């Protein structure tokens, strides 16, 4: 009898942990989403390169996060309220790491893996923005350091219990509009500035489109990212709590849908065509925007946040083109702009809305933005000064696949020849 009652706690723990594992799988599949989206939105002569970056970033990101990142981001409760802390290298199973004494929602291992899948996302966001011209080795080194050091530090500020979390009105970022997406977005901005645009992108100050090579890949990517977001946001509840998780899934889906609608109408208004690329970016914009407050919004809030996100994506794409910031896949518009918007929206809509919260949100956005932009800028700058970050003109024109990889993404010769 006693034993049976003890089983209740175990079973509850098992359910929560199961949900967190499922969320981990969903976040994992976002990496395939990024790989397909980014390769679909870029040229076929660079497809192997884009895919290679996305594959290696996951692998290297996981290993790096194992070695350093996890210890930096979650140093433990002894380090609350600080700016920097480190819990040690590598992983070591704490006492009770596999029972609910560690956390009522998940084991130490689940915790690590869920967080590690998140971490690799930030680097992957950058990979799209610098695509078609960045040197592979330079990018991989950048990713390792960014995932190992920058992302965990700002992550610690909030999720690890650092200073942003211990302010009077704590900064709020439910699942990472700022901590993940903007951090990726600021890194992307630094990279774009230091790399410069692709050859031929801006001629006499006018943007000259370089269409992506495969819309089916882009659509596969977007759907997989939406799917993955169920785990990204839903898993951020950190337990299988039925009410909280299912609300988060609803707000996430409605924001994505509203984002599509917002981008659909805005882009049709601007170009009189039904722009598939913008609709896809609109979905992603809505998803990024809802991420900061997915558990705080009602149905109408979520739709509004997503709708505005979708409109913002379209305007931002055009705006960045005006500034000649060449972003092949729209990473800035999706992750940076909507990361900021979504974080701010927590102060404007939903349960936490209020002026104190707005101030806290602005503090968080600025502090994390400043730190991660500066970090990325310096890191890219050092790489540029030393090994170089951009491929040769010849390589860029003939395609990175040929020179860096010695292969083509497609061989249809046999087929149609």
């Amino acid at each position, binding site marked *: 009898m006693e034993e049976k009652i003890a089983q209740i706690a175990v079973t509850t723990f098992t359910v929560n942990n199961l949900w967190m594992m499922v969320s981990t799988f969903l976040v994992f599949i976002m990496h395939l989403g990024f790989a397909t989206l980014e390769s679909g939105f870029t040229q076929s002569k660079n497809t192997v390169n884009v895919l290679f970056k996305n594959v290696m970033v996951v692998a290297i990101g996981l290993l790096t996060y194992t070695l350093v990142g996890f210890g930096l981001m979650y140093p433990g409760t002894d380090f609350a309220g600080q700016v920097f802390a480190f819990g040690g290298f590598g992983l070591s199973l704490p006492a009770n790491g596999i029972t609910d004494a560690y956390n009522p929602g998940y084991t130490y291992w689940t915790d690590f893996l869920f967080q590690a899948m998140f971490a690799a996302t930030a680097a992957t966001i950058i990979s799209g923005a610098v695509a078609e011209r960045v040197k592979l080795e330079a990018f991989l080194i950048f990713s390792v350091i960014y995932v190992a050091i920058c992302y965990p530090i700002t992550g610690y500020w909030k999720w690890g219990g650092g200073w942003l979390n211990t302010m009077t009105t704590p900064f709020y970022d439910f699942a990472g509009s700022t901590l993940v997406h903007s951090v990726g977005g600021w890194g992307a901005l630094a990279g774009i500035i230091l790399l410069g645009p692709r050859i031929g992108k801006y001629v006499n100050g006018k943007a*000259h*489109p370089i269409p992506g090579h495969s819309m089916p890949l882009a659509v596969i990517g977007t759907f997989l990212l939406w799917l993955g977001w169920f785990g990204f946001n839903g898993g951020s509840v950190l337990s299988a709590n039925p009410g909280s998780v299912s609300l988060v899934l609803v707000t996430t889906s409605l924001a994505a849908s509203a984002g599509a609608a917002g981008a659909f109408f805005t*882009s049709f208004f601007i170009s009189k065509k039904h722009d598939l690329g913008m609709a896809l970016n609109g979905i992603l914009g809505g998803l990024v925007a809802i991420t900061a407050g997915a558990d705080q919004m009602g149905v109408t809030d979520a739709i509004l946040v997503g709708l505005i996100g979708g409109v913002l994506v379209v305007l931002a*794409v055009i705006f960045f083109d005006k500034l000649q910031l060449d972003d092949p896949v729209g990473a800035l518009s999706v992750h940076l702009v909507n990361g900021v918007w979504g974080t701010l929206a927590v102060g404007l809509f939903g349960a936490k809305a209020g002026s104190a919260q707005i101030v806290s949100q602005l503090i968080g956005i600025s502090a994390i933005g400043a730190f991660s932009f500066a970090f990325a800028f310096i890191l890219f700058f050092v790489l540029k000064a030393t090994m170089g970050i951009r491929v040769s003109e010849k390589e860029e024109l003939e395609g990175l696949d040929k020179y860096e990889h010695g292969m083509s993404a497609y061989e249809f010769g046999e087929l149609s020849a």
Partner: protein
Amino acid sequence: MKKVEAVIRSSKFEQVKQALHEIEVNFFIYYPVHGVGNTDSETSVWRGVTYAAESIRRTKLEILLQDQNVEKVIQAICDNARTGDVGDGKVLVENVEYLIRVRTGEASHEGL
């Protein structure tokens, strides 16, 4: 013997093919090409930027003919590839010195 090369709208290809078959022209090759030229303005859009497509998709046909058949083939192509809008394409005639059929190795100056 002559080689007739025609660059036409891809959307008119099926109709031209039927017309050629009707006048017993059953052998030819075709392949897709990009045409640069005066065309019905086609606006493309990519990520919010509207631009004029700098090239359009056309189909090129190559037909080997005895000299006396050239006339009617050109007629058939023009009649069937025409929409009347700018961009309908071109047909040209070249001289071929001689032709060999791979299967038999037989050569001909007039066509097979």
